[in-house]
């Protein structure tokens, strides 16, 4: 693919296609009216689940490219839940049944319709001889879209990840809401904004419903760079066009299904207070993921400490098979599977495996590790952390900060640079033992790498390249990796991620999941 074309493609032509579809628009207004109805607000506990299902249903239809009557068990389940709740409410005569019947009528009309408005309207504007890439953001529409575009050899359907390389099209077509694009299946992958800032096409079409906005502004930018060199200036017509929400009734963010975060936060605080943690050092900020797993009306949550990575399973490269990756917690979201060790979760299995690899040298090596870590901890208590940081900086370790000190005294085996490790050991008055300590840490480092590789290998053998369908519809999948002694490892489907960081006992961020009362 021509590198020159990619270099020169910084200002694509942008076409904002606002699609009309009155029935869905009417239903959206009805959902909002129902949500803000006094009776619903007063008795929200009765309505909560039904409102949630209505919002989820609306979100699916807003982003669906396939005809509305395409078979979809997820949508069917939502419609059935809504219908059942409406029936119960109508039977109890606590609400205007005519209002509910109108909603039901619109839901039926849409779900029986063979219309695919986002695509149908769009198609008439596309030039058949042009190479066109339809961006797939809604997996449930994938096979329909692939079949439909097959009639033109120059038209292809790709996920954003499939066009990260040096490819180039006459046009790309994006469907639905911006949030769905940026947070595909909940995966908060902001990197897909490259579709706007480093487009692989001369033209971008964005097809969405007329009464919704798609306001989106790129966020990934180098703070020290000159604004005028950015690929697309945020005041350019493309973004002004997106920002023009004057004609839109619904802003993108108001349509996105939300979790009742406040309730979960209160519940977590309650559970933490029961734990009776005396030492504040044992409380850490963590990301909280509400899991889809439900048992006897109880919800569960998994926690990842704020400075650690989460091990998750998803089809990251979107090739139809599962992959395991360690990713930043902010990138983990709804629909992904988080891996947690379950049985035997009270101990560090990686350290245990590493110790067995170390064999006879384990005792001496671990003692050396304990010695220099403790010495660093003591030094920070003795002369203050700030002083230690400034001393180490003046000795040439320029990047050191509080997080570095924390990492060195807890998780890291040693500083990455051997030069810096030598400086640190000298600073801690270990001059005479440097060769022995360095050699011990090297041994531990190698043993941990070997242990990690062993675990990774076992995991990948079990999970990698499994068809995505293997996980489809499941909320928990258990793996027995190392036999009885080492316990099991489970993958849990994430229902939602809380926006706020929560303060929880440090141990919660380790293995295992915790009950979370959604009361």
């Amino acid at each position, binding site marked *: 693919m021509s590198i*020159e074309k990619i270099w020169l493609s910084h200002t694509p032509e942008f076409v904002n296609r606002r699609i009309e579809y009155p029935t869905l628009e009417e239903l959206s207004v009805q959902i909002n009216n129902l949500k803000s109805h006094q009776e619903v607000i007063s008795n929200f506990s009765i309505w909560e689940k039904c409102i949630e299902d209505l919002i989820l249903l609306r979100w699916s239809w807003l982003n669906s490219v396939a005809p509305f009557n395409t078979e979809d068990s997820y949508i069917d389940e939502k419609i059935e839940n809504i219908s059942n709740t409406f029936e119960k409410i109508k039977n109890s005569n606590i609400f205007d049944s005519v209002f509910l019947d109108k909603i039901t009528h619109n839901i039926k009309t849409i779900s029986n319709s063979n219309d695919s408005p986002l695509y149908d309207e769009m198609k008439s504007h596309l030039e058949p001889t042009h190479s066109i890439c339809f961006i797939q953001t809604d997996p449930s529409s994938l096979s329909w879209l692939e079949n439909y575009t097959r009639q033109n050899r120059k038209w292809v359907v790709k996920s954003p*990840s499939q066009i*990260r390389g040096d490819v180039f099209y006459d046009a790309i077509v994006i469907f639905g809401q911006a949030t769905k694009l940026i947070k595909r299946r909940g995966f908060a992958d902001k990197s897909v904004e490259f579709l706007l800032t480093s487009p692989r096409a001369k033209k971008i079409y964005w097809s969405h419903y007329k009464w919704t906005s798609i306001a989106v502004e790129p*966020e990934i930018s180098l*703070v020290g*760079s*000159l604004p*005028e*060199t950015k690929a697309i200036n945020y005041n350019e017509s493309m973004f002004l066009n997106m920002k023009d929400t004057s004609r839109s009734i619904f802003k993108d963010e108001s349509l996105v299904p939300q979790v009742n975060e406040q309730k979960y936060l209160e519940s977590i605080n309650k559970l933490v207070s029961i734990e009776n943690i005396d030492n504040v050092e044992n409380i850490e900020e963590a990301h909280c993921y509400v899991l889809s797993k439900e048992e006897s009306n109880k919800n569960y949550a998994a926690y990842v400490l704020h400075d650690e990575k989460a091990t998750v399973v998803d089809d990251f490269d979107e090739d139809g098979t599962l992959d395991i990756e360690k990713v930043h917690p902010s990138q983990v979201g709804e629909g992904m599977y988080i891996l947690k060790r379950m049985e035997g979760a009270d101990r560090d299995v990686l350290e245990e495996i590493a110790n067995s690899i170390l064999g006879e040298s384990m005792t001496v090596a671990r003692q050396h590790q304990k010695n220099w870590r403790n010495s660093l901890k003591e030094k920070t208590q003795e002369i203050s952390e700030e002083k230690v940081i400034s001393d180490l900086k003046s000795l040439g370790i320029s990047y050191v900060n509080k997080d570095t000190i924390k990492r060195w005294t807890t998780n890291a085996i040693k500083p990455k640079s051997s030069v810096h490790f030598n400086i640190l050991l000298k600073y801690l008055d270990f001059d005479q033992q440097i060769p022995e300590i360095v050699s011990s840490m090297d041994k531990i480092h190698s043993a941990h790498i070997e242990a990690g590789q062993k675990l990774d290998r076992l995991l990948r053998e079990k999970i990698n390249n499994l068809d995505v369908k293997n996980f489809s519809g499941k909320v928990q999948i258990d793996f027995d990796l190392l036999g009885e002694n080492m316990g099991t490892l489970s993958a849990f489907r994430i229902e939602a991620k809380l926006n706020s960081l929560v303060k929880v006992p440090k141990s919660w961020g380790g293995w295992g999941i915790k009950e979370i009362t959604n009361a």
Partner: protein
Amino acid sequence: MNRKFVDDKLGNLFGDWFDFLFQLGESAATAKYENLKYVLLIPTASFTPHIIATGAISGFLQSSLTTGFISATEAKEKLLSSEKGVEVSVVDKELETLKPVVGALDSIDIERSVFWLKISSNDIKYANPAFPLDNDRYLVSITNKPFVIPDKPIEQVSNVDMSNFPAYYKNVDVLGLFGLPKNMIQIAGNKKELIGQSNTQFQINQEIKYSFADLLLLNRSKKEMFLTNILSSNEDKLIEESELSIFVQNPNTNLESIFEWENGKTQIILIPKTSRNAPTLVDLYNKEYLFRENEEELELYPDYIPRGCEIMAYQV
């Protein structure tokens, strides 16, 4: 200049972007800051490190890193003022093939008008060669860095035909490439992808075929002289002595793993906007920029920056 890939699909290799990347390499080579970092957010990483690296070679040839090859008579003063042990290369013009003798400056005898290089630590087996100071048959290049004396002499041989290099490297004496230190540039990223691009051929004015592997004197065989290494982004494999390190966020790599690495020299970090790791890496380097030691705004890059390229330079 019309540069075009031999493979038609790849198109042209010239224009504002090419010029910017080449000049950036030149600027990076001549920048006088310790631990200098350039971070670039770009549309594609393909061929980008290679163009920058060739620019850097051009820059190094113009910089004070070496004197370039000058006649022994001309080099006399510089040799007298250089410290013992610095790397010196000598070429005998009368030999058919250019085979520079590389060694550490050992001693100078003004009365006899001779200087000696130490080319091996084994003095019994390998004699230290002497060269006349007042004879223009010999060309001398003097670096400003110490030469690590090997067990046995290193023979500087290149099987690359450099006769066409002047069409690519303008305004520099390509013979100077022999005088530049080994391992001068390292490019770290997805090794397979980077090497593949290095071997991709392009033509200048539809005539001679070039590859970046040749232009960068890439390390392909232990027997040949080389200036540039292509490595995987593994901290343990990085080379401390490299004057310029170019780190590329390629598929199946993660530059986070070498974020803390430093050798006191210049680094150029290339982040394609399409990379899944772009948000994390940009956040990481933005934080480093905001908390940098030297708050001076360093605009050590070409005046013209093409649209679609974000760049920042800072000292850590």
